[in-house]
């Protein structure tokens, strides 16, 4: 079912205009020996009805579960209006807004996105999105190195998501940038300040400050930011944007605020959807604006003095500056930023606050109930946002498998990345969970622990 509208008469008239006998002649500059394009593994085409049937069968294989995993991708309620608006062709299928005059809708939404993200993080500026939080962290590191000019080391706490550290390393190591890991305090799950002090000096460009960290625990962000600045390094805030409805904005951390705030935008209206598309956000202080990677929308005037929006600071970008660009990124996740903008506009500051608070309260309640089960305890007793680490009296993989058999995703097994934590699982209960969902978790966990 190719989407080609030509009639036979069209084809003939077009070939006549070109002066070719048949369509095949248009490929006559391709060396004959190369014309081996025959597709042997691509199946025959199907009509829409057949593909719809196939996809429904595939989808039916993917069972619905009661989900208590977070770990960087969070199940939140997304109002129906968000995706019904985003799915309109005007947003959905639009080209990159290079022709600004014909793209004011897309551009204004992105300008509003930048405004909201800067407001949420307390920073001066935002770009128009990056691919995701993990690759966004890498871009923040590259920015910091460009800004620092001499150092090529970045300090990163082990309390940052292992997958984020892995992605960042994949990207920045090709520019000979080294990530130095700072261990966490076994008692609190937060960055070990004594270990950090051992890295004092001016040979690193930035310290990454996660809030909340991968364990859901709240770091002492003020102290960490102050310390980084005292070493002549930048502070890169790695934040869950929803948590900022409750927590202090990175722009107010320490005496002068973090320099860059970066993170995963998915909690702001993007469905879990097997992991993507999500989007990364990146905000910064005014001084760093021209070091930002990615597209940026600016407000300006037209030739009649009327306000309008356009892509700006393109001189940073690869299509102008080529080898000297701040990054090679061009496509971003504009549609996801559009969804987030609508989500934030629908909820408002109060709605974001209530969502964050409900998520926090649910996780706190779940942890408290879980600790009522013999042998279950929280690994880190301190303040948290909406995730906690539970230590179990049995091997985590086996318990989680038993819970799965009961339709419950009981959390993320931490044994691979943090063997020192023992039988630990990372658990998250967002605002989507009801009291009876929490009870079901407890019941299923208890039963799974009691099973032989």
């Amino acid at each position, binding site marked *: 079912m190719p989407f080609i509208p030509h009639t036979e008469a069209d084809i003939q008239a077009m070939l006549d205009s070109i002066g070719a006998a048949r369509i095949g002649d248009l490929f006559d500059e391709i060396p004959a020996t190369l014309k081996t394009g025959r597709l042997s593994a691509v199946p025959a085409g199907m009509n829409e009805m057949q593909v719809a049937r196939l996809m429904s069968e595939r989808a039916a294989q993917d069972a619905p579960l009661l989900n208590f995993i977070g770990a960087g991708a969070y199940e939140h309620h997304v109002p129906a209006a968000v995706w019904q608006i985003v799915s309109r062709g005007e947003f959905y299928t639009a080209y990159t807004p290079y022709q600004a005059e014909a793209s004011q809708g897309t551009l204004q939404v992105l300008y509003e996105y930048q405004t909201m993200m800067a407001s949420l993080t307390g920073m001066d500026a935002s770009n128009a999105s990056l691919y995701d939080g993990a690759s966004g962290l890498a871009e923040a590191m590259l920015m910091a190195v460009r800004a620092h000019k001499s150092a090529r080391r970045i300090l990163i706490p082990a309390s940052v998501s292992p997958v984020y550290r892995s992605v960042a390393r994949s990207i920045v190591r090709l520019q000979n940038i080294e990530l130095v890991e700072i261990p966490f305090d076994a008692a609190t799950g937060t960055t070990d300040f004594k270990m950090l002090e051992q890295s004092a000096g001016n040979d690193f460009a930035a310290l990454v400050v996660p809030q909340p960290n991968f364990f859901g625990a709240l770091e002492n962000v003020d102290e960490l930011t102050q310390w980084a600045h005292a070493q002549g390094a930048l502070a890169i805030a790695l934040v869950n944007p929803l948590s900022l409805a409750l927590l202090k904005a990175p722009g107010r951390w320490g005496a002068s605020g973090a320099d860059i705030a970066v993170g995963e935008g998915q909690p702001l209206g993007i469905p*879990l959807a097997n992991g993507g598309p999500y989007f990364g956000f990146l905000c910064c202080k005014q001084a760093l604006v021209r070091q930002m990677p990615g597209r940026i929308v600016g407000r300006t005037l037209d030739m009649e003095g009327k306000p309008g929006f356009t892509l700006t600071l393109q001189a940073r970008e690869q299509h102008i500056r080529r080898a000297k660009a701040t990054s090679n990124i061009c496509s971003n996740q504009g549609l996801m930023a559009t969804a987030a903008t609508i989500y934030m506009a629908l909820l408002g500051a109060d709605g974001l606050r209530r969502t964050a608070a409900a998520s926090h309260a649910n996780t706190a309640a779940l942890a408290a109930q879980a600790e009522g089960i013999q042998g279950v305890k929280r690994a880190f007793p301190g303040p948290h946002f909406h995730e906690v680490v539970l230590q179990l009296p049995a091997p985590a993989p086996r318990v989680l498998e038993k819970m799965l058999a009961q339709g419950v995703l009981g959390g993320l097994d931490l044994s691979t990345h943090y063997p020192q934590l023992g039988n630990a699982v990372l658990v998250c209960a967002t605002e989507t969970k009801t009291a009876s969902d929490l009870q079901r978790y407890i019941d299923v966990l208890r039963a799974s622990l009691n099973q032989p």
Partner: protein
Amino acid sequence: TMKYNPRACNSLAMLPQFMARHPLAPDSTGQGFLACLYELQEILKDVTGMAGVSLVPMAGAQGEFAGIAMIRAYHEARGDTGRTEIIVPDAAHGTNPATAVMCGYAVKEISTGHDGDVDLDALRAAVGPQTAGLMLTNPSTLGIFEKNIQAIQKIVHDAGGLLYYDGANLNAILGKVKPGDMGFDVIHMNLHKTFSTPHGGGGPGAGAVGVAPRLLPFMPIPLAGRICSPPGEKVHGGGKAGGGNVHYRWLTENDLPQSIGRLSAWMGNAGVLLRAYVYARLLGAEGMCRVAEFATLNANYLMAELGRAGYTLAFPLRRASHEFIVSAKRLKDETGISAMDIAKRLLDKGFHAPTTYFPMLVAECLLIEPTETESKETLDAFVAAMKEIWDEAHSAPGLVKTAPHTQPVRRLDDVKAARELDLVWKPAA
């Protein structure tokens, strides 16, 4: 490549089960999703003639990064550490040199010959023991098929370098020629172009990479793997998909220890990949051949007609591939109307303007790509609009120079935008 985005791709990728699944849920709970991605990998291998495909990169530029990172990993794994340069033709997309730099390489530009092909002498002079690879698009950004591709690949390979294929123009040759057969070692594909996933006003895209056998160990992870267990062995979550005990699982660091690693927290832009998969199944092998044929027919027809209308063709003796370049230089000399003015005036006539001033080799250029999904009726309307603008340039140049006239705003002040940065709204003081 802006073509029709079939609505079925959207609705089927947004089935509730796909939307609800957490990326860290066990593989056994995502067999349907994994099966789709596995099959998409297989389809893309066939289309590109490559030995392996990874769907990880989240856009073309990240695909380029993955490709060049694999080239670097390949040389390093062989202990071939002196290769510090990537060669890039001067007509290449700006992402090519930017990517090489992100991957720690120096960039060497080579020039283009008069007929639009790479200057082979320049290439021969450029290669050497310092050459890590060459980045090329074929058909090129000039809208023509690089005829000397076999000679090029021999020069680069003989020098010990690898060949990178920028898949931005894959739409032109889908089902007709395979980059693998041309001798390329690695390719990225813009699924949001060739496989028609929506652009979304600038993203998300998807930039899958395909590799020749020698780069297989270095592919970015995770990959969708298909596991056939011995008969009789019980497989959790396995199913009917392939008959017998077939199931799917993610291949990770453990399976590809030499991988360049992860580029996204999860599986790239999973939902975009599902859309591309649905599109591929709708088209099938036959449909893909027709994509290339009609994209090429449309481009050559439009080129012929615009040539007749007075516009200067950049390469009048060459076939257009899926796109072609006209130059407004003569018109500008005669009337003062630039490529930019034409672009803005096209907005008034209901057409999104083509790319202007790229590639930079051709003065006052317009790079025009109609794609296969536009009808002759639409193409004729475009030609008529371009003719009108030609006439207006002579009869009423002021009208064209001050276009657009029908959009919400008139021409915007880009210089002011960059100088007096206003990136976030602030309440009036």
